């Protein structure tokens, strides 16, 4: 009995700490991961991550500043981002923008992630 | 076609895999001592 207790007490303490850490760390750091249409209709608060396809209207200005339209099948929205573009960035690829939808309807992205070119082919060869 | 290849390979592997069954039996082993094999 003593043996089991000696074992159980540290386990419970550590488990409690871990649970607390997960809870407190998630609180501020969780973001919603939405599609463009979801973002426009539901407007979740705080920073969100939006996935969409880059359209053909990429415009770069003033060095590290770019605007483009992101679309997810139905809805589209303009995105504004200042920073280094991922290598693979070009019209037609899927990007994940992290940031906030401004009142002007433009999404101000803090970070921009593009999906790595697939090691596992996204386009099986069709003839 | 692949099935033909597979069957061929299995036939080739057969003797190797079944060798313990096919070979002439070894000398009978001394009776096992208790506690050596669970």
């Amino acid at each position, binding site marked *: 009995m003593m043996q089991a207790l000696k074992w159980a007490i540290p386990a419970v303490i550590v488990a409690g700490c871990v649970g607390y*850490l997960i809870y407190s*760390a998630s609180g501020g750091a969780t973001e919603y991961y939405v599609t463009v249409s979801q973002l426009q209709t539901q407007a979740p608060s705080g920073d969100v991550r939006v996935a969409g396809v880059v359209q053909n209207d990429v415009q770069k200005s003033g060095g590290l500043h770019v605007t483009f339209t992101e679309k997810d099948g139905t809805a589209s929205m303009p995105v504004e981002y200042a920073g280094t573009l991922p290598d693979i960035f*070009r019209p037609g690829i899927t990007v994940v923008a992290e940031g906030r939808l401004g009142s002007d309807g433009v999404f101000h992205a803090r970070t921009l992630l593009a999906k790595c*070119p697939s090691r596992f*082919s996204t386009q099986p060869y069709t003839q | 076609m692949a099935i033909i*290849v597979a069957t061929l390979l*299995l036939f080739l592997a057969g003797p190797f895999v079944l060798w313990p069954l096919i070979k002439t039996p070894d000398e009978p082993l001394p009776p096992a001592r208790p506690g050596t094999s*669970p």
Partner: protein
Amino acid sequence: MILGYLGAGALLAGVVMGGFSALLSFWAGWRENDVFIQVGRRGFYAAAAMTVIAALLLEVALLTHDFSLAYVVEHTDLSTPTPLVAAGFYGGQEGSLLYWTLVLGVLGAASLVASARLGARISAYATGILAAILSFFLFVLAVVASPFDLLSVTPPDGLGLNPVLRDGGMLIHPPVVLAGFASFAIPFSFACAALLAGRADAAWIAHTRRFALLAWSLQTAGLLLGMWWAYHVLGWGGYWGWDPVENVALMPWLATTAYLHSSQVQERRGRLRAWNFGLVILAFLLVVFGTFIVRSGVVPSVHTFAISAIGPWFFAFFFACVVFSGGLLALRGAGLGVASGQAPAVSREGAFLLQNLLLIGVVAVVLWGTVLPLVSGLLGTQRVVGAPYYERATGPLFAAILALMAIGPLLPWRHAGRPTLRALRWPAATALLVLAGLFVAGVRSVPALLAIPLAASAGATVVTEYGRAALKNPAIILRRRRRYGAYLAHLGLVVVVVGIGASHFGQQEKDVTLQPGEGVTVSGYTLTYTGSQQRLLSDHTEFIAGMRFGDQTLEPSRATYATLGGQALTHVAISTTSVADVYVVLAGTNDDGSASFRVFVNPLVTWIWAGGAVVILGVVLGNVGERSAAPELARRRIPITLPA
């Protein structure tokens, strides 16, 4: 075309042979029929041979540019350099699965060769489990995702590799990581076999220790190589993004780290048996789960994986593995908890137990973050967490683990007393000194102030141990290679932690647009933009910028591939010293002649790579050529048979 049929045939033969081996081995093990146990084992060898044949055929198809195979077309073309063509073997979904299976077959066979001395039953059951896993993979390869699928019309050329992937990192990182994943299957199989056979002793641990070490080493190297590749090639200034693919490689590593330490308690004291079984099983389950997550597309990741047909199969396999191993633990677990004697709390054993708890805690944190999108998506709006979550939640746990690394080796197996307290003054003093030094140097980041002194104290413990041995009798170091090799690995890890602490929390970054002649200063380093050149090549246009830095000129470049819709490829320019990396990315060139850069100063990055090498060195020096006297020793010590 022939190669396609031969390969498909080999895979099919492998499935049949593997299935045969599995069924026969389980039956023969149950019946303890020695002849059929041997037949079953040979069946595994034959299935492994079929896998080798299939692998060779695929490699030949790639190297001969056999474009009748869809896989060859999708991952190579005539202009791809030969090493990358060869690497195409593991570069795609189907090929990487075959590579996984190949490693499993070869290592599995190696582990079975000497397994008979563990006892007929364990050996048979281990064969059965390994054969079952092998058969599953071969089945998926033969039926669901075959690398040998043929095209009805052979195209004249392939699609080739995306420019971003045309790099040495692609050659070495995937095969190491994949081999690491595959090798986790061996300890798992033997652990489950032991449970099935009703054996709770440590014989299986001694037998599989080598494979667990190999799996751990491969995973360590794989993680570091991945970090190195991300840092040098991908150009975002960092090396770890807590992406699902990365997390999935990290979690089994953590579980195996715990196991490698905790297994010592079982070997010496016969305790923590349930933990060891649990950790080994957990590591493999995490690998299978991770493979499912990463190849099914269910969790958003920076690494694109097409939502593929193999997802559901891997989920089913994962489920089967959980039921099988979980059921075994539940049924046999009751007998495992029985320990002989009392374990003192403040002792090396207590430290190992605490280490287990902490490392599992980290696994829980990382797992939760990784599956949150999946779980939340099922219940409502999908949510994700980013680096801040992982850092905040794992940070304190890692700090505690570092403290354990400093204290643990100094604790005796029996109850710790005054001598221990005296020995602890060295690490304690080191920690305080380093903390003071950092503070004076202006470091204010709390995580860095925590991590680096603790890491330094762990390093001090290693040095103290080596010093004590050297003073008493240096021959001890050679005689107890396992321990001192492990200490060296600890030291390497310490160096890695310091490198990560400094480069992550001490990173300076600046975005700047410069005209030729203008300069920028980051963290005391001054760079001057000297102008750029443009080169026009067949499939891309390249801009090369010159950045003068001291007496060297860094040349970050940016290539644009018109044929690929304007996709870019940045070539990062890095100036490396042991103190810091000056890391320059050319973000773009502008019409007015200016160029935009992102400049990073990353302190102590080289310590990460150097430390990693020391870790591997420590493992190798401590274990290569080491005789495994252990199986007999372990078997003699606590030969408890579990209630059936």
